[in-house]
């Protein structure tokens, strides 16, 4: 279980995130949504231990500040919005780098690491790409390779920053379905999402941030109302609910 208690992130005085309190149950998928600059990525980066924060983050009753970098990396796997994918590395080599928190600082991979990387490749159906270079992959394949690297980390919590921005609709659904299926293996997911419809369909819970503060939280139907989206995104939308799914449709003004 992840607990954030009044977490704030500042960038040189200006607060990017203010007093975020949040509980994420094991196996849940929580999506942070909100307009540009709302603090979604800052919240995710605070969880990943990449920015200093005020307040407390507690994972399974352990304060993350008490954990070293490696311990943190065994707890959280982080996929940034634009991952760095050196084009000459093979998919297998790239996924093996995900084993870093389990490998001694100046050591090399052992059998257990190669097996873990092979499992991650199989889980994301990338086995036949193992010896291909990253530069030769399509956008969707590349995103799967990045997920495989995160999976090889064998961390119980997966942090995804805008996992679908570079993908077309079909590839986006494919990736989100994959992430959803990983939850079956016990993975907890915290993501940021731009696409509200997709966010609502895949996450159990949405947290809407605006100017660094939480303005709404709950199930998709609770958070995604015409009035809320209009107020915080400055967008004109129609929200359609059908069979329990929520669709946020832009309407030309």
């Amino acid at each position: 279980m992840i607990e954030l208690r009044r977490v704030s992130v500042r960038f040189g005085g200006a607060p990017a995130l203010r007093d975020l309190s949040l509980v994420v149950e094991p196996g849940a998928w929580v999506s942070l949504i909100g307009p540009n600059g709302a603090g979604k990525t800052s919240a995710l980066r605070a969880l990943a231990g990449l920015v200093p924060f005020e307040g407390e983050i507690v994972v399974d009753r352990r304060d993350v500040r008490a954990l070293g970098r490696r311990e943190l990396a065994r707890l959280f796997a982080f996929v940034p919005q634009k991952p760095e994918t050196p084009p000459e590395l093979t998919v297998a080599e790239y996924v093996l780098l995900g084993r870093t928190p389990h490998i001694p600082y100046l050591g090399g991979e052992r059998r257990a690491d190669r097996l873990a990387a092979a499992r991650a490749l199989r889980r994301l159906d990338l086995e036949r790409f193992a010896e291909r270079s990253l530069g030769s992959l399509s956008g969707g394949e590349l995103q799967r390779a990045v997920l495989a690297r995160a999976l090889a980390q064998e961390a119980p919590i997966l942090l995804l920053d805008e996992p679908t921005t570079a993908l077309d609709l079909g590839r986006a659904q494919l990736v989100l379905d994959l992430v959803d299926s990983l939850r079956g293996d016990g993975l907890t997911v915290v993501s940021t999402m731009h696409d509200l419809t997709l966010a609502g369909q895949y996450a159990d819970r949405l947290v809407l941030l605006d100017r660094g503060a939480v303005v709404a939280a709950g199930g998709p139907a609770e958070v995604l109302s015409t009035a809320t989206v209009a107020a915080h995104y400055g967008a004109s939308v129609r929200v359609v609910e059908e069979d329990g799914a929520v669709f946020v449709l832009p309407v030309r003004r």
Partner: protein
Amino acid sequence: MAVDSVRERAAPRVEARGVRPAWGLAAAGFLVGALVVGLAVGPVGIGAGAIVESALAHVPLLHVRSPLDGVQEAVLWQLRAPRVVLAALVGGMLAVAGSAYQGVFRNPLADPYLLGVAAGAGLGATLAIVYAAAGAGTEALVPLAAFVGAIASVVVTYALGRTAGAARATGALVLAGVTVATFMTAAQTFVQQQHAEVLQNVYAWLLGGFATSSWGDVAVAAPYVAVSSVVLVLHRRVLDVLSLGDDEAASLGIDVARTRLVIVVVATLGTAAAVAVSGLIAFVGIIVPHTIRLLVSTSYRAVVPLSLVAGAGFLVLADVLARTALSPAELPIGVVTAFFGAPFFAVVLRTSRTMR
């Protein structure tokens, strides 16, 4: 369970390529060949077989008799051998430090002189040449002053770069390096201008070379080169992790700032020691790692160790050219590395299929 383990064995090969044996052997062969050529070539011709026999004669209990006469023995072991060994140490050091700098700054044009090592060493050496009382002491003083100047320059660069904050760490560090190097070069030029009578000595040092190399120089440089290159080679996998960028390396459990500091400090110490005994030799730190990248692999697991070995061989051969091309006069070795290195690199660049 049994089914699972069978399936795991049937899985595709999941491993890092690292250094394939064929490339390791090729690099080692290149270095050994370069060393033999370096020992054999010169005004006094000595055959490769004679070199091997003479070397064995120095091993106790073997009872091999050296086929060489006293003069040949002295030429081989007191003049050529220290020169060849020193060139190998310096070449390996510059190449391995260059590969590490390129990894740590994620900049293909980074060379071991990036943070001001060269300019600092130049200033240190110039001050020693100008102000040290002419006499026996100067020879020992110049490398020491160069070493101190190089280290001081990188310390100032690092302190300056840090003030920009962690977010822009690498860019700020590179800019700080340019700033410090420019300042040091200006100071060096000024001192040199004020003392035109030592211009020749200063230039001879700046251009670098192994004309006066002795076993003493080898003893000075070897410990630094050994420690530095071992530590850098041990970091080869970490350098691959750093190639994912600061954020991702950090989220994989690497303390990026500390790792960068360790690599920069170690590479700088080795480079400063190399520069102190050889002067400034351009291009080795860039050309050797990039040749490995183009021919073998861009993974630092291959680039770092192979740069060390190939860099050593490359500079030994460059030194052979420097002392034989216009014999009995010597070319500055920096001229040789650039004159033959640049066209060679151009050919590699054009013919390589791996470069996009």
